[in-house]
């Protein structure tokens, strides 16, 4: 038993970049969003026509722009980590501020989308598609907001380890959006 034990802990877990707790959080988040998407697809099987109709009320174009914005933001966060290794504090901070700014733009566009939907009288009860739409993209938007806060914290206390923790979270937010976007907005 000694060999696998040494692999399991603390060994291999310590080799993860950043903090173990962040990876616990990331795995948990992926489980939640994964389960949400699976439930979405499951319910969709029961009512393909209704889902196809409901989907026409969504806004794929702004969501598509948001995808590009969030990926660019993720790129900037990754650059910040790269600069972190060479301890260029000002550059680190500017890339993170840019990443956070794009996160803010994402939220503004998202807010416009929500406002328009609600303005059209669409609520969580209108159709199951909208229940999932509001829940999943709403939860995700809350994570974008939290992520901006986390990036602000690591821009302030910018050790390499902190940068790893913060950018790992930000990439998770990115990844979740890349999964949500096609499944919710595009799947015909």
């Amino acid at each position, binding site marked *: 038993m000694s060999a696998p*034990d040494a692999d399991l*802990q603390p060994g291999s877990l310590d080799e993860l970049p950043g903090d173990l*707790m962040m990876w616990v959080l990331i795995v948990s988040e992926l489980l*939640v969003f994964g389960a949400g998407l699976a439930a979405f697809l499951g319910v969709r099987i029961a009512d393909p026509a209704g889902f196809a109709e409901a989907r026409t009320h969504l806004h794929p174009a702004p969501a598509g722009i948001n995808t590009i914005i969030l990926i660019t933001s993720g790129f900037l966060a990754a650059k910040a980590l790269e600069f972190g290794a060479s301890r260029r504090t000002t550059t680190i901070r500017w890339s993170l501020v840019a990443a956070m700014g794009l996160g803010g733009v994402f939220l503004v566009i998202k807010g416009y989308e929500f406002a328009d939907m609600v303005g059209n009288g669409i609520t969580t*009860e209108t159709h199951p598609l909208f229940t999932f739409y*509001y829940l999943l993209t709403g939860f995700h938007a809350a994570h974008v907001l939290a992520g901006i806060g986390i990036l602000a914290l690591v821009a302030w206390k910018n050790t390499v380890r902190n940068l790893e923790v913060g950018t790992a979270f930000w990439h998770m937010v990115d990844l979740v959006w890349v999964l949500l976007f096609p499944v919710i907005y595009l799947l015909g």
Partner: protein
Amino acid sequence: MKYQSQKVALAYFAVALGLFAIQVLGGLLAGWVYVSPNFLSELLPFNIIRMLHTNSLIVWLLLGFFGAAYFLIPEESEREIHSTKLAYLQLLILVVGTLGAVVTYVFDLFEGNFLLGKEGREFIEQPKWVKVGIVVAALIFLYNVSMTVLKGKKTAITNILLLGLWGLALLFLFSFYNPSNLSLDKQYWWYIVHLWVEGVWELIMASILAYLMLKLTGVDREVVEKWLYVIVAAALFSGILGTGHHYYWIGTPGYWQWIGSIFSSLEVIPFFAMMAFAFVMVWKGRRDHPNKAALLWSLGCATLAFFGAGVWGFLHTLHGVNFYTHGTQITAAHGHLAFFGAYVSLNLAIISYAMPLLRGRDPYNQVLNMASFWLMSGGMAFMTFVLTFAGTIQTHLQRVNGDYFMDVQDQLALFYWMRFGSGVAVVIGALLFIYAVAVPRREVISAGGAASAPAE
């Protein structure tokens, strides 16, 4: 026992075990009413028996937690408890409150009185003066243990334990808020009921279990702490929004069905992690601790909690399933094994560990204690299976076929008889446990001798 003030725990454990006896005897009585429904119906109606059964359970578990905290905090923070006087005063308040509640329930005194009458909300029926007493006692407790920890060494175990205990006390404040809208009432009611057992109590459970593993297996504190943090993170992540699995049918918006289903499904994870943690620690541990009974209860606790809270909870947590099973005997099956596995066994584990130290004896009477483990756990497992079968049949007859409730109950009689039988086993086990930790004394060890040797 390294610190004199740890002795406070003895009084807490004694009262807790007394109430434990009352709780299981009340359960047995309720089990008998199931097979003979008119039994005592005039003198002591079923709803009162059930109330005594559940309320005494909660109170003795809380007393056990308080006792555990008073026992382990001095050792962890390496100093005496801030004030033993306050600790005894706190116990006194809780005992008076408990007796007051019991007398009020049984004789139905002061019905409808704002301050003195029972309040009628399931599990938080206590008269308002008792609730105030509970809050005062909780404040005394939090002050006492927080002062001890603040002045002493801070460890992950005490931090998590305090977080859990503070959360427990703060959430209880919702019992004073009783909106007239029934949906809102239930919404806040679950802030106590759910966020206790599937939130902050899990923190208490994880930290006490971590303490026991540290002492019993001798694994490095660093390793124990890493597990502890992961378990606690998983418990809070899944448990807080897992509250949604109580919001399916109480008038809250429909999206709770998805929030509740998804997050509460993940509640299995912390319980699985606690089970994995306990077994991995024992495998890795090099210490051969003489207190085998405490180890048995610790491993039993983690295992039965995983099945009772985790697996049996998941069984009916998805809203599509719960639509049919809600409030059937499936719920009773889950409730019994979950409480027994997670919190009863946890308390009995720390009591089994602490009692020999508190009383200056070798970890003795192990055979009796371990026999009581198998008797209680076996009885409880059998009860769970029986109620699960009863619940499955009930769900089909009542919810699928649409038969009348009482007609279905008649068809479940055989299961209720078997449940009563398993209840007898649990009661005998409980009394045997109390006898095993309280009575046998062959060898008393002098203070400062071997008693402190098994400790870290």
